[in-house]
């Protein structure tokens, strides 16, 4: 369908996604999953992940209707097995070549090629995983879908990665927007397609914040470290066990200062990025906005990182829930009532592949 997007979203009343999950319930589910995973030597984790997703989807609502997730643990498991054996074959290939008479340089070349293949497969996995989850998502019986090909996405992703290598990372805004554009223009629910109209250049100025804060962080860190080292009388030897404690403290504080400032720059960029991507994404006549403040996002990212580090990753479901709740609160949806016009598009479920690769890579 062709739709003109001329109306200003801000004038109309906004609808929001609701989220009513809570930490206590999630803890109960998570403990159950962990126990079952232990009992089954870890095999349950695919079914556990499915239950977690169902929990997140079912507690998210739009216009009084909950989302449904109808993927199964069996699907995840089969895809994981296929991906594992595929990866194992790739890994064994160089050794098989060596065994069958290839010289050492060929062996090393094959190992390097393996790494290239892994990066490429990781991109394919990311897209395949998104496609899988979208195609298992239902709202009011309408199923989501992601067209396009994982291969085309991976080609783009790989191309942008090369570009980032050539430009020393300065192409990052175009990379983010380019990949988002490909994915969004292929995204749909029912018979509707989403669309994105935006350009990487619009994110270049905010991107400078990352660069600026990183440089500031390096300068601050070096100043702090050298001040402390100077006060401690400098190095007498390069033996790390003989460093004066004051100098060690200075180095630690310097590194901390760098990371804090770099993270401030990164979070600031994220707020601009999310706002820009949301405002320029449309779904038929339905529009979006996500005006995210620096403080709230910094709080979210900081606490999430802390949770993961302190619990060695065990808190990941809670981190996911916090992020989801934040997203539901931040996203505003305009003219959502148009969604009632949605009609089903057949064959979405069947087209979706798996996400085994992503599981293997722990992406």
């Amino acid at each position: 369908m062709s739709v003109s997007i001329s109306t200003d979203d801000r004038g109309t009343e906004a609808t929001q996604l609701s989220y009513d999950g809570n930490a206590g319930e999630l803890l109960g589910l998570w403990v159950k999953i962990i126990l079952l995973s232990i009992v089954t030597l870890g095999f349950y984790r695919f079914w556990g992940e499915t239950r977690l997703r169902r929990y997140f989807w079912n507690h998210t609502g739009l216009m009084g209707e909950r989302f449904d997730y109808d993927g199964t643990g069996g699907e995840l498991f089969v895809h994981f097995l296929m991906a594992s054996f595929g990866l194992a074959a790739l890994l064994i290939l160089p050794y098989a070549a060596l065994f069958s008479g290839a010289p050492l340089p060929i062996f090393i070349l094959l190992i390097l090629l393996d790494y290239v293949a892994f990066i490429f497969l990781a991109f394919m996995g990311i897209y395949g995983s998104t496609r899988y989850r979208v195609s298992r998502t239902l709202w009011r019986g309408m199923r989501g879908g992601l067209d396009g090909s994982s291969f085309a996405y991976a080609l783009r992703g790989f191309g942008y990665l090369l570009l980032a290598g050539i430009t020393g990372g300065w192409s990052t805004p175009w990379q983010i927007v380019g990949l988002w554009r490909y994915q969004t223009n292929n995204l749909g629910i029912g018979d509707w397609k989403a669309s994105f109209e935006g350009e990487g250049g619009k994110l270049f100025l905010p991107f400078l914040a990352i660069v600026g804060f990183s440089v500031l962080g390096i300068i601050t860190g070096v100043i702090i470290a050298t001040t402390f080292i100077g006060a401690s009388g400098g190095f007498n030897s390069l033996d790390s066990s003989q460093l004066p404690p004051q100098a060690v403290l200075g180095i630690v504080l310097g590194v901390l200062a760098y990371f804090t400032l770099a993270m401030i720059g990164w979070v600031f960029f994220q707020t601009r990025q999310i706002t820009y991507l949301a405002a320029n994404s449309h779904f038929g006549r339905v529009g979006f906005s996500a005006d995210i403040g620096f403080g709230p996002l910094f709080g979210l990212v900081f606490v999430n990182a802390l949770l993961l580090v302190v619990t060695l990753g065990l808190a990941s479901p809670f981190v996911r829930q916090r992020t989801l709740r934040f997203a539901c609160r931040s996203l505003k949806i305009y003219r959502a009532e148009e969604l009632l016009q949605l009609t089903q598009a057949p064959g979405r479920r069947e087209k979706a592949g798996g996400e085994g690769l992503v599981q293997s890579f722990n992406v």
Partner: protein
Amino acid sequence: MARFEGWLADGRQAVRQKVAIDFTDEGLRLNRGETWPRASITRVERELRESAIVLASGDARLEVTDPDFAQALHEAIPELRQARRRTLRRASIATLLAVGIFGGIWWSLPLLAARIVPFIPPEAEEHLGDEALALPILGKQCVDREGQAALDALTQRLTAGMSLPYHLSVTVRSSHTVNAMAFPGGRVVLLEGVLKEAQSADEIAGILGHELTHVLKRHSTQALIANAGSLVLIDVVLGGGTGGALLYGLSTLSYSRDMEAEADRGALDLLARAHISSEGFADFFERLAAQGSDTPPYLASHPPSETRAALAHAPPSPRDLPALSASQWAALKNICKTVR
């Protein structure tokens, strides 16, 4: 039977409508019109505390909040609950099977690897061994002619009358690390460090016998297969990082304790057949063990076995002869005076 009220999303459009639900012999009838046949109805699983029941038939969804509906549904379509039980039963069986199969493979990996080894052509292993010999950490090749002749004589004596799986190559490298190793394809390397550490040719004969047993039993290939297999299994069970673990495992190939024990027994056997005293072999270990704090590399890569403890007390035989003559031993010790 009672009539219930529910919300229907018909799967064609994203609208919800209130419907009246009747149970009939065929299944569910909505608004006294359309019927959902029993066989087409499934329950939509939701991870929610609330008691609403969601049924699906194709893309259509029906949500009922009436608390009495569950009982009525169970009575009218009992196979829905049976389907749940069946899933649980299948899952339990599948879990037991999976745990059994993976446990079985894990336990039998060394045996499995030993069975696979005969299918690997020795030429392939020799090639792999040659590539390993090219590693720079081993140091330079020691090629003094008299020294090599002495080493060859000792090798000949230890392997006399045996059929070897490979074209054997025993060489010395100039690294000062106290160690010796058997690479795939019968490529045995003694490092100069171990020659310096040894106080008699008998000691070297024991060490050589140990490495030669690894060769005769084709341990390297067996270990390679078993290590790779166990790492793949770990990855499948625990998930994640398939790449790193496998690469790491292959690059830090080591022999199992069983193989080391077998090699120790084999060394004693070879020494006995060649009429060389095993006392030197025992002395070597005792001296290394007495070095204390830092575990010498040889002991680290050759974990002590019960055989080794027993061998210290092996009675000397009157027929024992020195492993090498005094001049041969001197030549071997100086093999690294010419390097390549």
